[in-house]
């Protein structure tokens, strides 16, 4: 299944290319242990929490890059 910001964090973590994209936009995505607590959230849902500090523009940019993975 194609990955997007509507994929769950754990699905994004499992794909090395997607994880690299996420790490670039959201430093700590691959290494922060807290990410394991939120892995059942979609990235879009995670981005809604103020602590995530992800703007709508960033979310769109991430979605575009994930779509390019096919």
């Amino acid at each position: 299944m194609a990955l997007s910001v509507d994929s769950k964090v754990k699905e994004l973590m499992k794909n090395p290319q997607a994880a690299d994209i996420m790490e670039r936009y959201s430093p700590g995505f691959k290494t922060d242990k807290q990410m394991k607590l939120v892995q059942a959230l979609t990235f879009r849902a995670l981005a809604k929490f103020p602590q995530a500090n992800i703007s709508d523009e960033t979310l769109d940019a991430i979605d575009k890059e994930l779509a390019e993975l096919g």
Partner: protein
Amino acid sequence: MPLKDKLDMYKGVETVWGKIIPEKEAYKYALRQISSFCANLFQVMRILEPDYEKRTEAICEIAYDMNMSASSEEYLNSYYDEWNIPEFCERSSWLGAIFGDSGDEYENMAGRVIQFTRDRVEKELDTCPWDIVGSELCNMTTAMFTANFDLCSVNNTENEVSLNMCEARGCGDMHCRVVAERRDVFNLPKQGWLDHMGTPARECHVTPRERMVKEGQLLRNGVYSNAFGEEKTLEWAYRWVAEKGWVWSVSFPLVAIRDMASSDEEFERIFKIVFSTAGKNAFIDPFAVEGMRSWLGVPREIDDNDGRLMGGYIKTQLDTQLVPNELVRFDADEVRIKVQPESFNGRFPMAPIDELTTGFEALWHNMVKTMVSPEWSCWFEGKDDDDMFIIVGKKIDKKMI
């Protein structure tokens, strides 16, 4: 004096058959159900990692890290404000005990603070809803306390105390007892994760059995009052445990336990087997079904081979756990309960647990086999949709497990 106009109002959960489960009983039941899920999860852990020390250290590390990283300076400042901690109190590790004591009382871990001073803190517990899980969890809570003490330490990074859970209900002791003593005052070494069940430096005060309590302050008094006089109500604490009880006792250890499996598939396979077994055993005794019927107020018109027994039981569980749900079908052929995966798995919205769906489906599917009969099954539909349906119905499957 004229008659009252109407009956007084009390909070409670109404079962499908109109029996009222009072708020206090519902709260205690919800706590024990969270504990039961945690106990099943720990069985999964024991299969995946046979070495006691390795698995205990793994969950301790995770629980510590999660507690530390969830707490910012802003959080800590609001904590001092929330608990009305006076400015003249030295901000060092001993104040971390406020976290521990409040958490205990929110979760009906009934007991008392024996000593609360800068150099030494002693807390004694007479009950613990999680006392069925096993001592790995007792150890894990000491890791969480370590985080509390670290956060409250002078530099917010490393605590000044030696921490010992020298008694634990989960180990068969009469009490749980947690003692934190300043290392510099009592000349004590820094501890590793598995060093926290030792003997404190100074003698403890043991409350005799006849003065022990069975319920926490919230059930005895309706409020919890901390050392500085701040209060929380039962209603507030019930909501807190319905979220956070799952986080500390299921989400935290799950992070480590998933990593103990060779693959996600292996984790899920063992997880389902353990929860299935627990479900089958829950109602193996015929008197257990009788007890449940009485508790839910099931009328005799509902006979032994009726799926509504299971449906009514599940609905009450959801209600006591404060999970929004809707009974969309309830007849002799089928029960259908609508929930949202977002709230069913996301008791704490920031940390949903997909394993709640996996676990409860395995648990209830097997539970209905002994509660009602093997003709009946329980399965979930729409797990990836906005609405999920918990269904109790008759099903034939030649490979049924």
